[in-house]
């Protein structure tokens, strides 16, 4: 792995991966992953399909044990630090008739893992209202979740992840299926989460362009390996060529970045295209 950032593991890092390797189905899905993320940092995770992006998130969530290496959240083992990690899943499509309001979904993020049922209470209500207001969802707080638009749902999922006061929030392709305007809204919201609330954000996406204005560093995954650094450090022909293992060009047009693979462009992630 090429870690282009000089900052190595140090005291104030919230997430540390060292020498992480994962084998699935007899194949190394990730190997030699080292990374260390700071509080309030916004990191975009980019890579072609099957590069191991979701696998990386599963490791950070403690749902998958790496075969090699260590993973620490705020200096603790991931399983002990579960409450410090918020999660926005890759897909969430509730049934239109599900008897669940926006506020019920967000409330589950607060205490859904606890035994028994909640007796309500003013403090719980206030916390839910507060979380809804962060994501500007108060005006649809009482709507059934199954009838919300993709962007509205995405904001709720962010509120659900934030309500338990995590140090890190992981988002798996939150921009898929959103139009450009909703993409912009979600990116701006998540940017505020990182830079105003000081929560470290790890956001997986296929298109880096919507993130260019907010992203602090980019984690580029390909062939189970990673390159971490600023966009200018990582999204360069020579770096990506080494990562992919064959020639890659990086083209900048009108402030957008396009990654093109020389011989077999088909097999590469296209920096500006969807999906």
């Amino acid at each position, binding site marked *: 792995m090429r870690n282009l950032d000089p900052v190595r593991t140090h005291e104030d890092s919230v997430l540390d991966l060292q020498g992480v390797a994962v084998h699935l189905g007899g194949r190394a899905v990730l190997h030699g992953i080292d990374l260390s993320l700071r509080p309030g940092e916004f990191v975009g995770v980019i890579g072609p399909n099957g590069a191991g992006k979701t696998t990386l998130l599963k490791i950070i*969530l403690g*749902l998958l044990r790496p075969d090699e290496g260590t993973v620490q959240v705020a200096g603790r083992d991931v399983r002990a630090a*579960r*409450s410090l*990690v918020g*999660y*926005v*899943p*890759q*897909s*969430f499509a*509730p*049934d239109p*008739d*599900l*008897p*669940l*309001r926006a506020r*019920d*979904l967000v409330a*589950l*993020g607060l*205490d*859904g*893992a*606890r*035994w*028994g*049922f*909640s007796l309500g209470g003013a403090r719980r209500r206030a916390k839910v209202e507060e979380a809804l207001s962060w994501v500007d969802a108060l005006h649809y707080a*009482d709507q*059934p979740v199954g009838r919300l638009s993709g962007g509205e749902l995405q904001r709720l*999922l962010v509120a*659900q*992840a934030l309500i*338990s006061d995590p140090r890190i929030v992981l988002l798996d392709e939150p921009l898929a299926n959103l139009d450009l305007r909703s993409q912009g809204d979600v990116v701006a919201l998540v940017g505020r989460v990182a830079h105003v609330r000081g929560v470290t954000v790890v956001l997986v996406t296929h298109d880096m362009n919507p993130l260019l204005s907010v992203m602090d560093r980019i984690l580029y995954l390909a062939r189970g390996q990673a390159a971490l650094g600023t966009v200018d450090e990582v999204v360069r022909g020579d770096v990506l060529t080494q990562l992919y293992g064959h020639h890659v060009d990086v083209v900048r047009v009108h402030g957008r970045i396009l990654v093109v693979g020389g011989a077999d462009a088909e097999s590469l992630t296209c920096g500006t295209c969807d999906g």
Partner: protein
Amino acid sequence: MGLWQTLFPSGLFTASFMQNAWLAGTAVAALSALVGFFVVLRGATFVAHAVPRASFAGAAGAVLAGGDTVLGLAIFSALSALGMAALGTRRDQGQTTALVLMAALGLGSLFLALGGAYAPEVYALLFGQIVGIGRMDVYAILGLLLLALAATALLYRPLLWSSVAPDVAEAKGVPRRRMEILFLLLVALAATAAVPIVGALLSFSLMVGPAAAAAYFGRSPGQALGIAVLIGILSIWLSLVFAYDTGLPVGFFVAAVTAVFYGLGRLWAHLWQIERGRGQVPV
């Protein structure tokens, strides 16, 4: 006065077999609706259809072995639920559920054939016999209801979260597989209580009907759960009255009444949407 007497003849409430029927029916309806609420949330209606039917094979086996039919029911509903949990992932649950159901029905027909041509206890379990139950059965059913109440009270939030948003719940420490198994065991519990009363063929309607209707009336999970239990109890009460008055099987009325409630739920949701739509400006 005349109509009142026809609808509610005195024996409806005073006959001791009817008193047992009221108690057992109410408990079974509440239990079925409680479990049915999670069935509907998880979109697992096929499981609710399959477990009671699979459990029927246990009763046939019990007759063959000379054992207690309800014990046979309990064992087979639990085994079929665990079988579905062991084989299935949630995506292909339909296939594995069908597989377990077919295996159980095959065994059931074998047991029936080996046990002799006529086994009245077994046929009673197909269609239920709410007027034939004794005081001990009532206590057993109340016990099952209490068990289910305690379990859902304890599991309510994690089971709810795992049902509506399994990925997030799992990421936050609610184990998906374990919740799936506990849910299936709750379905087995409800089936064990419901099959002797409303029968293996129609206990599905008592489990899914009220909860599906309630999903239209209730807006929050708590509301929907409460309404499901109310509709379930009301359905069994109406069915008992109609069955007593007409002498027709109670299972028929349970199926009909819950279907009517479901229709009302859809109508309500439809009207409510029209009402809300009025205030909105088309974009």
